């Protein structure tokens, strides 16, 4: 059984709202990305993992414990950043962080101070008067300072400026090195691409794809785009045996896909042609997702 095991999870809110037969297996020590547009069902799935919602069907087990029935025990391993952040009580950030460390029985104030410095968070501010970004930082500090085995985060980087987002992603990588298991939902594909080991894509409550990021990051099939000076050259190239993705005859442009091991062969061939330009088309996770969504539609 996987460390976090979601099996056939279904919660039907009617009118097509909800999640349907969601199954995910998250292994110990991996960073798992969870992407989808707003309203796709990310938060609903995460709320089931936290035991806040009761499933209509299926279940979630975390470290062998049922997330609904043993919700309180599960919290011994889990730290959480909610999608909408508001802190209980009327106290300073420092008091909140200390209370949270005390209540969860894990983590240390030293670590929280370290993280606050790193994220440039003023912990003396009252939690009620904090800006969105400050709340987000406080939530991040609280989650990372708690030293939990599992981090479940619902869109944790919203409200952070690009600099802080980089620091946050670095922190994620550090946590992974310490063997933490992390599930992070997001609708920003670049950040998921940067840190995740695997990514599940959810759409209208259903998982439509689970991708190993290694396949995308170290994809040995690359795409190139080139334009020829003359029609003769253009036609001569087409006659060669390359995998053509797209041909724009009016601009004398060709898009091809080629495996890294054949790249020398291509360059040899191209010596005989008169080119306007030749460039690699970078393939990102975002393109990949876009493609999946297009296929689905």
């Amino acid at each position: 059984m996987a460390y976090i095991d979601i099996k056939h999870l279904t919660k039907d809110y009617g009118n097509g709202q909800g999640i349907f037969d969601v199954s995910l297996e998250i292994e110990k020590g991996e960073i798992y990305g969870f992407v989808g547009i707003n309203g796709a069902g990310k938060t609903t799935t995460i709320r089931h993992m936290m035991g806040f919602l009761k499933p209509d069907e299926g279940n979630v087990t975390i470290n062998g414990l049922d997330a609904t029935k043993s919700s309180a025990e599960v919290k011994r391993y889990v730290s959480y950043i909610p999608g909408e952040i508001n802190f209980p009580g009327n106290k300073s950030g420092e008091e909140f962080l200390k209370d949270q460390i005390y209540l969860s029985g894990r983590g240390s104030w030293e670590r929280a101070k370290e993280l606050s410095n790193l994220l440039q968070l003023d912990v003396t501010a009252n939690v009620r008067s904090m800006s969105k970004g400050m709340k987000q930082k406080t939530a991040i500090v609280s989650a990372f300072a708690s030293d939990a085995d599992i981090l479940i985060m619902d869109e944790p980087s919203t409200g952070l400026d690009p600099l802080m987002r980089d620091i946050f992603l670095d922190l994620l990588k550090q946590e992974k090195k310490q063997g933490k298991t992390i599930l992070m939902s997001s609708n920003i594909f670049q950040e998921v691409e940067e840190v995740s080991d695997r990514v599940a894509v959810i759409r209208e409550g259903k998982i439509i794809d689970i991708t190993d990021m290694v396949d995308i990051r170290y994809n040995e099939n690359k795409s190139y785009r080139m334009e020829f000076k003359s029609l003769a050259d253009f036609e001569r190239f087409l006659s060669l045996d390359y995998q053509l993705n797209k041909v724009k005859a009016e601009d004398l442009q060709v898009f091809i896909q080629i495996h890294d091991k054949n790249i020398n062969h291509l360059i040899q061939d191209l010596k005989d042609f008169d080119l306007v330009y030749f460039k690699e088309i970078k393939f990102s996770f975002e393109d990949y997702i876009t493609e999946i969504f297009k296929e689905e539609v």
Partner: protein
Amino acid sequence: MFSKPIFKQSIKTNWKLWAIVTIVASIILSGFIIGYDAAGYATIAAAAEGTAFSSLLSSMDSLLGNLENFYKLIALILGIVYVVFTANTLVVSEVDSGSMAYTLSTPIKRSSVIFTKSLYLISSVILMYVIVSLAGLGASQLQYNNVTGYPITEDIEKASETLDKSERYLSERLYLIKDNEQAMRDAAAARDMDLDAYSIYLGEVIKDHSYEKAAEIITDERWNIYEDDDDMEDDDIEITTEELIKNPAMIVKSNDALTAGARVQGISVNEYHQFLSDEIAALEAEENNEKSQPTVTVTEANGELLLQAVVDSSAKALNMDSAQVKENLILIKDSIALEASMKATDLNEEQIIAMANNAMVSSARSVDAALEFDTETYFWLSLGLLILILAISSVSFFASTLFNRTGLALAIGGGIPFAFFLLTMVQQLMDDTPVILEYLTITTLFDTDAILASGEFGWGLVALGTIAFVLYTASNIIFTKKDLPL
């Protein structure tokens, strides 16, 4: 089940409102008690008789009755304000804002969270009303000395100045006033009586006090004798002051009671014994009282009519208003007034003077009675109010756990209690309200009238307690099971 950190957090978030409501309620209750004007209310109530206003005043003829509006309206609305807002802050606002996610992402069970929060609301309400009740008790004691001793009336105040003794000391030794002519004059004037009427009044009060002390001692003795006797009910064992007034012979049988009674009277045991014998004889004489009578006899039945006639004729003779004479009955004894009254009523002079004295004494004694503090009644009023507020708090708390949106929870959990309050207000302030209103509000179950009249009120309180228990239990179950949007 109980979570200390959650309890602490609940206190930290809610103590301010708690403190404000507790202080305001204590001050208002103390104000009601200190500002109570026994003689004044008696006059107003008499004047308002028959008007719509009288239903409001009917219960004001005693210190505790005067508090009815505090219990039914002011304490109720203050309690509602506290429980509605606190119930809201405790649960639904944390769910709605999402801050509950932080509480529930720690290894504290949902059931302990909600249990601790219900416990906070219940115990804070209990503490609030215990403090308010004690404040009322304290105010009454400070103002009238009537919780642990005899009420300090105006005559005692005046006499204590004359005799240079403390009011409390004097209130337990009223015979000291009787023994000093100057003190008697001053005290009588303070109570708007002439010396004649005041000495009758004082004699009666001292006699009652001595009977009261004797009754306590006889009851104690009987307890020792009958404690293990299953045939004797508690009520049968207890001897009340009223029983002794009817049958003073019982005192003679107990040496301790005799001593205690004599001490109150400030006389020797032998003298007291003689006094009691006279009393017994007088009572017997009253029973077979068929003395030769003048033309008209004053009986209980015609007493009030005759008094009115005397007052009216005196007023006419003195060229005054009847109400003025009624307020100052000494005027009846004026020789011109007396003559007019004798003509008007066919009573002789002696009878009219006796009647005037009686009227003055009984009005003074009813003021005294109004100032008496019945600890038992006060206890039931306070406990009833507490249970009522607990029942209302359970309604708000239930709404707070049932709904996920603050607005809806406030509309239901605040609207229902507020509707109860409005219905109660209509009932209290209007004369003839439709009976159906009584069934629309749970405040009816806290029957202050029945408590004040020592009637049947227990089942109403049991019902309120049941409502509180059921709704708190339901809240706990619902919150533990429901889906939370966190």
